[in-house]
């Protein structure tokens, strides 16, 4: 009892072939879209790799690029087969390849599913990498004369401006590191000496933040120094002031950006899986319809199409039996070998 049989006449077969050809070209475009999204994601990770200690995993974008290319290839081939299916002569040369092709499509769908899962799960890895990377970035902000780190200040400033955030968790992270290079501190000054001596590690700590934390939407000019000292500025209360500097932390801002990107890509991949499954079902119907023509010489005869030749349970049982016989054949061969040695 075939699984989901459908009767086909010539018109239905032609319509199926044409519709399937269009869906295959749509799938090629979706494949190109996946490829370009993979490249976009890779570029975004590279742009901000300094914030992540150059430690970020490029697994997801690389996988996306690979999957996009494979999708293009597989679907283009499928479209070609559909285009030729209406011509019996051309179709004859594709016929032997179709079964392995359908198995390949199944495998490809499994790969797509894995990629979608990774898109959702790797977000945790990105979060942890960001937390660690940002902490180090803030620490190295002042090292504008150290080769390899001289652009950290600029990158962090531009990130804080672009993502409208300040510090790792919030702006108080800047109070705990020295973010002014020693080259610009007058070590002979009493004030500087007091501050440096006031903590164990000898760091020049201030209750100030860099200018990139400033919020342009604030009605008053930006207050970046002496943030916790209410008497240093006229009509200023640091406990209720909200618009002066950005209150969000950069880890949260960057993570929400990457996470929304990865979630949308994951949703797109799931839609691609559904599309590919429809492609496979259509191709299976087309090939079975063309194989079961009652009179091969007469193109106008009726035929049957199905998804599986037997029911789901029986097909599954057959597969298991095949696997078992494969195992048994190996054992027999080994036994034969050992007999001949003796």
């Amino acid at each position: 009892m075939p699984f989901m049989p459908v009767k086909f006449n010539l018109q239905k077969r032609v319509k199926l072939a044409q519709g399937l050809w269009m869906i295959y070209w749509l799938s090629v475009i979706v494949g190109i879209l996946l490829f370009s999204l993979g490249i976009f994601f890779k570029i975004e990770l590279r742009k901000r790799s300094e914030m992540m200690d150059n430690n970020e995993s490029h697994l997801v974008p690389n996988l996306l690029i690979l999957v996009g290319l494979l999708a293009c290839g597989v679907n283009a081939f499928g479209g070609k087969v559909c285009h030729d299916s209406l011509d019996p002569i051309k179709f004859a040369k594709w016929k032997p390849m179709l079964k392995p092709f359908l198995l390949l499509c199944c495998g490809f769908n499994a790969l797509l599913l894995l990629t979608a899962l990774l898109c959702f799960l790797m977000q945790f890895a990105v979060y942890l990498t960001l937390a660690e990377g940002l902490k180090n970035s803030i620490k190295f902000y002042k090292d504008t004369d150290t080769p390899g780190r001289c652009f950290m200040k600029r990158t962090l400033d531009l990130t804080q401006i672009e993502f409208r955030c300040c510090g790792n968790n919030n702006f108080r992270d800047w109070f705990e590191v020295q973010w002014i290079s020693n080259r610009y501190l007058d070590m002979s000054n009493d004030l500087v000496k007091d501050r440096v001596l006031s903590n164990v590690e000898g760091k020049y700590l201030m209750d100030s933040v860099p200018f990139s934390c400033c919020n342009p939407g604030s009605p008053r000019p930006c207050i970046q120094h002496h943030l916790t000292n209410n008497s240093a500025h006229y009509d200023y209360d640091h406990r209720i002031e909200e618009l002066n500097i950005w209150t969000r932390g950069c880890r949260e801002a960057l993570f929400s950006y990457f996470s929304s990107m990865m979630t949308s890509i994951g949703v797109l991949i799931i839609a691609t899986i559904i599309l590919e499954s429809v492609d496979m079902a259509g191709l299976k119907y087309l090939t079975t319809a063309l194989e079961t023509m009652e009179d091969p010489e007469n193109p106008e005869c009726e035929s049957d199409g199905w998804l599986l030749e037997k029911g789901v349970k029986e097909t599954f049982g057959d597969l298991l039996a095949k696997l078992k016989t494969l195992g048994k054949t190996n054992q027999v061969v080994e036994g034969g070998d050992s007999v001949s040695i003796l």
Partner: protein
Amino acid sequence: MALMLIKFDMKKRVKLAQTVWFMYWFAVMAGVLVFSMGLFFKIELRKRSELMDNNESHFLPNLLILMGLVACGINAFGGKVCYDSLDPSKFVKWKPMLKCFLMVCVGFNALLLVTALLCFLMRIPLQFTLAEGLKNGMKYYKDTDTPGRCYMKRTLDLMQIEFRCCGNDNFRDWFEIQWVSNRYLDFSAKEVKDRIGSNVDGQYLMDGVPFSCCNPSSPRPCIQLQMTNNSAYYSYDHYTEELNVWKRGCRDSMLSYYGGLMNTIGLLVVLVTMLEVAVTIGLQYIDSSLSTLVNPEDPESESEGWILEKTVKETFTDIMDKMKSMGKGSKVDEGGEAAVATVS
């Protein structure tokens, strides 16, 4: 003696019609492109209209939008005519309209050329609008509590950050105006009273700039206040310091941005004009070749195609004669009416 005469047989006519049809669809896409460029330009002007005193002229983007739409319409119609030109029965219904349509096309092409010229010329009024608008923008920077101007600070800050510029001509423009609102000045402090008393207008002037002038590439944390006072900071010389704040003025930055945009759009419109001229010529060839069939009943007969039926000079004199006869015709009518009036 026709201008650029070409002999056509059936095959050549079919090829011509197909090529011109293809080019017409290309021209429709070009029209869509011109429309979207006009829309983009309009949006860019609107985004920064606060900095231009809401005084900027939207003439050019509106013209571009109109031309884009008209181009789409004309080219779609032309494509339809080309498509039908291979079928004599369908072509018959278009034939009477073709001459007028070709005249309209020629007029449209001239208009496109004028638009391209405007793209290059409108830079000059824009320069003046920008200069005036930015000066006022800076003056109103502190008025964050005045309705209608409360977002000027934010707009100006974001612009200085995005365009990497400071002030109108350079950062010293900020030294000449009060950019701190009076609400945040402690008038009982001696220092504030001194500064306000030190100038005629009673403004609180400082040698400082807003934070948005800061250059993130500077190796040292940004120095925005007391900029001309070398002793206020360790190892600081304001004469040699170059990376601290942006050196360029915002008028220059914005002008180069908009100027570049207009140059690109102008170039694009010139290319679209050339495409339109090509399709007009192609349609003229199709029309003339289908009109001069040696044997009208036999579609496979030979024919000739041309751009102008007579030479340029003759066509020009013909047009002048036609206009003169039209003028004389109205005069004769007037004379006749006067005679009738006098008789009765």
